[in-house]
């Protein structure tokens, strides 16, 4: 019997090795796998490359991981906001590397990795400093940049409902990066609000199908206090 459900967030992240590249879903706090991130803090892996739209908030989750010096490099679109103080401090001290990627390119690079594509040409960022040094060519009169796939060793995502095969749904804009990151990692771990019996989710409303998911664990939505 296929059963991807694991008992806790700690169990789910137990084998994450130092030096891993980890994709982290969510847009701000919406759809963020905050409990898995808290477990990762306890778990201890370090020298991590984290891929996420943002850099976390205050001193929990991704921000706490950064504050503790566990992140070597951040690949993201939008690290510059007041509550991203953990990242800012380390960045200004030269203690963390930043690869800034336009938001649409960031998600498309992960999709390319998940879809087995070797790269793609996009007009986004052409003739700007973010495409400096990258191969460009004019296609149909538009300058386009060649972007490479971005694959994770792990993806940590948040969903709404799952079954034991790993079929997943998402609640509203919790969805964001999560279904794409699910495709783009060697091991994808999902925290969800609820596990339901196999067959309880209508096949037409499943957003992420089982083969993209490796472990699922139930966690209430994490609300920092």
């Amino acid at each position: 019997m296929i059963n991807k459900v694991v008992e806790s967030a700690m169990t789910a992240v137990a084998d994450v090795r130092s030096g891993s590249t980890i994709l982290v879903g969510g847009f701000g706090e919406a759809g963020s796998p905050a409990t898995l991130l808290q477990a990762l803090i306890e778990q201890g892996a370090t020298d991590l490359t984290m891929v996420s739209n943002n850099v976390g908030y205050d001193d929990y989750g991704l921000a706490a991981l950064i504050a503790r010096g566990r992140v070597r490099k951040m690949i993201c679109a939008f690290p510059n906001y007041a509550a991203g103080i953990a990242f800012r401090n380390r960045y200004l001290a030269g203690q963390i590397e930043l690869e800034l990627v336009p938001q649409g390119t960031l998600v498309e690079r992960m999709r390319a990795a998940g879809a087995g594509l070797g790269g793609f040409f996009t007009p986004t960022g052409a003739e700007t400093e973010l495409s400096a040094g990258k191969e460009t060519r004019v296609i149909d009169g538009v300058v386009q940049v060649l972007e490479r796939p971005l694959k994770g060793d792990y993806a940590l995502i948040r969903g709404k409902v799952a079954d034991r095969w790993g079929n997943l749904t998402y609640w509203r804009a919790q969805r964001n990066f999560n279904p794409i990151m699910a495709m783009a990692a060697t091991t994808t771990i999902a925290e969800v609000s609820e596990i339901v019996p196999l067959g309880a989710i209508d096949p037409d409303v499943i957003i992420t199908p089982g083969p993209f998911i490796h472990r699922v664990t139930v966690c209430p939505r994490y609300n920092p206090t």
Partner: protein
Amino acid sequence: MEKRRLTKEEIALCIAREISEGACVNLGIGIPTLVARYLAGEREVMVHSENGIIGMGPPAAPDEVDLDIVDAGKRPVTLVKGAAIIDHATSFALVRGGHLDLAVLGALQVSEHGDIANWRIPGDAVPGVGGAMDLCAGAKRLVVAMTHTDRGGEPKIVAECTYPLTARRKVCTIYTDLAVIDVGPDGLHLREIAPGWTAGELRQLTGAPLHVEEPVPVIALHGGAVS
């Protein structure tokens, strides 16, 4: 006619007027966000948010807050009837693929060629780009909402941008507190001007040549509930 600059709300109203029924629009942070206020009424418009919402409604009232329903600035919002949720890859496919009829963005500078600089202030501590470059690259029509001059009184409309570029040759129209200016293949064309201002005065505050056809229509500030 009293000589004055438009308020942010009035700039937003002017932009709202050019949005037609059925359009799919993305409204950036700042003045662009205000445009949503003037879209209500008989016109139905589909407001897109980068994080995968089509049919974004007004900000959420305290009793409506759902932390998973937020706008591009991560503020709790509502969904309108007919709203759809899509994933981030599809959301940016919509943006880059030309399915967005209009994107309204703020800017630090716009050049007479339609180049836009709006993502990075030189010397900023931490740079961030978000979805700005995608929106500029992909929207069918890109318009900018900004003040005509910066805090030091320097022109934000320039011959060549000196701030890092977001995209080249993409801006169609610039809405400022002093004028509505279209960007054509031959440069900037003054379409409308703020009440009481002359083209000559505007040229002094604009860092690139301006094509002017006199008489220049004054921006109409009636016909919309400017609050």
